[in-house]
């Protein structure tokens, strides 16, 4: 490669974990990187743990991107799986790059993208939750909108 990648990066690139999509996901985060053109989609399935806390029960990704983009996607899914939503949201780009034993400076934006995609997936889940809890209201608004 033109860049120095750690063994951990190459492992995650060559044998990515949690690659694919989740049918009927509870949240999806889609992000495109305007800098380099990479695209990352993160799907999550949310469930309650024994203590009643919401956790990421399953997570998968699809990525159009370089070695680092695929490796960071694979890593974020591993870091987030089983974590509470609160914990998952706090995963930083630094956590990702450290778990990958470092990324070339020019590729740091890839880890940024991965943490942003996960945050978007969680936000999407929370939005869906809000909508379903106020479902009737939502329908009314839509109805009025149509009459108008």
């Amino acid at each position, binding site marked *: *490669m*033109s*860049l120095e990648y750690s063994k951990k990066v*190459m492992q995650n*690139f*060559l044998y*990515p974990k949690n*690659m*694919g999509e989740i049918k009927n996901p509870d949240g999806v985060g*889609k992000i495109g990187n305007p*800098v*380099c*053109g*990479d*695209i*990352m*989609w993160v799907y999550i399935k949310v469930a309650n743990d024994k203590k009643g806390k919401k956790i990421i029960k399953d997570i998968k990704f*699809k*990525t*159009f*991107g*370089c*070695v*680092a*983009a*695929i490796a960071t996607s694979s890593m974020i899914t591993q870091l987030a799986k089983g974590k509470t939503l609160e914990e998952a949201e706090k995963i930083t780009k630094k956590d990702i790059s450290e778990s990958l034993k470092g990324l070339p400076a*020019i590729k740091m934006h890839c880890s940024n993208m991965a943490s942003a995609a996960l945050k978007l997936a969680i936000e999407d889940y929370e939005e869906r939750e809000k909508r379903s809890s106020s479902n009737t209201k939502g329908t009314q608004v839509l109805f009025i909108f149509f009459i108008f």
Partner: protein
Amino acid sequence: MKSIYFDNAATTKVDDKVLETMLPYFAEKYGNASSQHLKGQEAKIALEKSRKIIAKSIGAKSSEIYFTSGGTESNNFALKGLFSNNKKNHILTTKIEHDCILNTCKWLETKGAKVTYLDVDKEGFVNLNELERAITDKTIVVSVIHGNNEIGTIQNLEAIGKICKKKNVLFHTDACQSFTKVPINVEKQNLDLVTLNSHKIHGPKGVGALYIREGTKITPLLHGGGHERKLRSSTENVSGIVGFAKAVKVSKSEYVDKMIKLRDKLIDRILKIPNVKLNGPKENRLCNNVNISFNNVEGEAVGGYLEQKGIFTSTGSACISHSLEPSHVLKAIGLSPAQSNSSLRITISKYTTDDEVDYFLKVLPGIIKKLRRISPLK
């Protein structure tokens, strides 16, 4: 582990015969070609013999060959040297030049040069009418790359040379990729300056040459002891120059024919993979160049998987460039950033075998399939 080198546009393996020819010039015939004594003269003889070989290969006189440190220096020397020695200020070039031409031009713009960057068509060819129209009475030189390093397009030097002659402007070409692969003749093609280099033709790195037609007014880039007829000071890199000349000597047209066959096999078979696109032309293409965009997958990632299989390639993707911008050449032929990011360049050499090509063709479809499964794009 296999090691298949498909990045010969970046650099090439030094030919065994070249290396053998060079070796005595390190510890035995190590004299300075400027020294008057026997040791120096021994080096001087080798230097002049090499100059003759290189001059002959492009139909030039020995006295018109100036050795440099390589393609980048020759291109810098040509444009900066002409601009500094001319009252005119216009340089005409193209959008698909190597960075060392484009960045030299950008720098010259800060020094008062006016530069026109010509568009190219979808296959990378310069439009001759446009080129002729862009020449003004301020034009010093037309500088057009002969064989493009990314997409392999070979420009019609003879036709451009005719225009330059008619319009009475100088004509420079960067022939780093085409040298020994496509015929170059400074008379037939009316060339005034030609950039040549060694490490793309199985010679050593750090050596190249600039052909400068007799009588051309040019300022040196390096000032010093007055080597190379006062135009390029610096003790001559005799071992490198001897190797460079040997590399020219051992090049054969049979190698070109062999590479064309392998190149076309690669292109035909890769195009059978769904949703791929050949970048650059089918005809008038460098014998060693294949450049393909694979929709919905990223070039560096393809390269990464290929490397895992022992195959070394290159990409025009933004992901590997330090500026994070996709290749300017692919942009100039109309590729979207996504298509550029999906490009893979495979450049073979005279050493490439049928087996290597077959192995590559065997592993490539699976890699593309896997990356397309990872990709969210459909």
